[in-house]
Every structure is written in C-alpha cells, then in structure tokens.
C-alpha cells in the first residue's frame, strides 16, 4: 500500500470519514430522470411516440421515487427533507453568514428544489398525456402549460446545478461524487446537520 492513496488520511493529514448518504435506487433514479429530461428536451422529436414513452418513463421514475420516499430507508424518506420554507430561509441566512455545516440528506434549500423538480416533471407528464387524449388534444392552454412547465424545468435545472456547485464550494465536499458513488467524504470535525 502506498501512503498518498491511503483513503482514510487526506493530504492535510486530517482524518476522513466516508458516510453513505444516497442508496443505489436514489442514485439510479436521479441519473435516469436526468437522462429522460435530456432525451425529451433535446433529442426526441416533439409529438413523436418516442417523446411520449420517454415522458411516461420520467413520470414512472418520479412515481417510484415518491414511493421510495414513503417506504425506503430513513435518508431517502420525506421525513429526512421536509419541504419547509422557514427552514430554507434560516438555512439561507446561516449560509450567508458563513456557516459551513454539512447536511447528510438534502439541505433545506435543496429539498425545496427537489420537490419543485418532481412537481414540474409531474406537471410536464400530465399535460403531455392530456395532449394525447381526444378531449384535450389541440387545446391551447394545455400546450401552453406544457411549454411553460418545460421552461420552468430548464430554469430549475440551471438553479439545481448552480446550487450543487455552490454547496460543494461552501462545504468543500463534492455533492456530484455523492450522487455517483453514494458517499460523502467528511473530514473529521465537520459540522453535520
């Protein structure tokens, strides 16, 4: 074994703890959902059968994630990241005052984004499905809603990625790494909330 790659000691000599945060199902759903959004946003042709199916898959993914948030392990559940604007505001204030605490699940702001993304995907899926029904086919407000939801989703994704980049910078812990291999590397003495 060579010393520089010893995983438990960082280059500064501080002890590092690897903490599991995201289970495999959460990670798989995250990246699958990202893929479906990429496919339907940029690649599949609108009004094609493919676009429809990819949309249903996205809906299914969100559905499974919601189910997992009810019956899954503690970190994946709703109770680990309740949607709370007051907590989000408090979190924002403490971040602005230089707090560097690490959250093992979503941080309160991130939690709001998660619910926003899920709801937006559901809205896209529902309005998309409505367009395939005889009853709502060609009705303008449904199409407008679908378009609006998509634009909102794009904006949300930009904010989501910016938030991930900001939080990784703030805490010094890569969030991208944790959604890939499921673990966060916490140097000893890290404040955890």
């Amino acid at each position, binding site marked *: 074994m*060579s010393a520089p790659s010893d995983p438990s000691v960082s280059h500064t000599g501080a002890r590092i703890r690897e903490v599991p945060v995201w289970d*495999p*199902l959460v990670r798989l759903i995250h990246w699958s959902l990202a893929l479906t959004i990429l496919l339907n946003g940029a690649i599949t042709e609108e009004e094609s059968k493919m676009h429809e199916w990819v949309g249903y*898959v996205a809906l*299914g993914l969100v559905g*499974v994630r919601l189910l*997992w948030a009810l019956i899954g392990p503690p970190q994946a559940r709703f109770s680990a990241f309740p949607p709370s604007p007051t907590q989000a505001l408090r979190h924002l204030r403490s971040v602005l005052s230089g707090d560097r605490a690490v959250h093992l699940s979503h941080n309160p702001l991130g939690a709001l984004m998660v619910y926003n993304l899920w709801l937006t995907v559901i809205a896209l899926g529902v309005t998309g499905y409505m367009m395939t029904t005889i009853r709502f086919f060609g009705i303008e407000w449904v199409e407008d809603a679908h378009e609006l939801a998509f634009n909102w989703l794009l904006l949300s994704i930009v904010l989501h990625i910016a938030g991930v980049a900001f939080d990784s910078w703030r805490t010094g812990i890569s969030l991208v790494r944790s959604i890939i291999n499921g673990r966060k590397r916490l140097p000893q003495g890290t404040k955890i909330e």
Partner: protein
Amino acid sequence: MMLAGIILMQVLSALFFIGDVIADIRDGEYLDNVHLGLEAFASVALIAGVLFLMLELRRLLTRMGDMDAGLKIARGQMVEVMNRFFDEWNLTQAERDVALMILKGLDNESIAQVRNTAAGTVRAQATSIYSKSDAQGRSQFVSLFVEELMSGDFSSDATDECP
C-alpha cells in the same frame, strides 16, 4: 446497485403493461378479453414484485448499516487496545502516529511522505517504538496486536463467543 437496477427495469415493464392496458381500454376493449386480462394480471404481478423488491432492498440497506455499526464498534475497541498499549510504552505523540501507520501497513518511506519528514526520522522513531515495546522489529511489533486480537481477552464478550 444490481437490485436497484432490477427494480427500475421492473417498474418500466409494469409501466409498459399498464400503458398498454389503458390504451386497450381506451380503444374500447373489455376485461373479459383474455389478452387484456393477462396484461392486467401481469401489471399487478409486476407492481407486487416491485414493492417486494423495494422492501427487500430497504432490508438489505438497513442490514448493511447495522453491520457497518458493528464494525465501527469493533474498530473502536481496537483503537482502545492500541491506545492502552501506546500509553503503557510511553510513546510520544509523534511515535504514536508512526506506530499507527506501521500497524496500517505503511512502510517507512510512505510514512515519511505522509508526515512530511525525512525517511531517516521515521526510521529512528520506528526503532524507538520497537525498543519501547520490546519487539524485535516491524513484524513482531504488528504481531503483538494480532496476538491480542486472537487471545480474545481484551473484551469479556469476545471470550464468550469463542468456540
């Protein structure tokens, strides 16, 4: 990861069947149709499978967490044993660090690299550690701890569990 992948694939299959059932119903077929009945049955079976696998995955994750906790406790006890020995031998703080890295299997050169010191310094510290602990050298020093682990007398329940 494997199990999670299977869950998602099953979900997608369930989705396909449900979608097909809905499309069939929309097209005006009825449940007494054998084809539709089979499809509905398949959907229900798939959904049941998904639910079962999800619970199974949760059980697996919890068990892995428990095992991890057990491992941590064992590790904590090992650290206690090590600290007791280090205290007994009156190791300095630097010697403790070096001793720990020796136990982790690092060679002198690597230890010097981690600690930002010369290899000679580490060699001197290691020699001092061996003489304080009455060990002839590195392998004997390490075996002091292995012996302690195998004797099972560092913790009362460890003896109980020994066959």
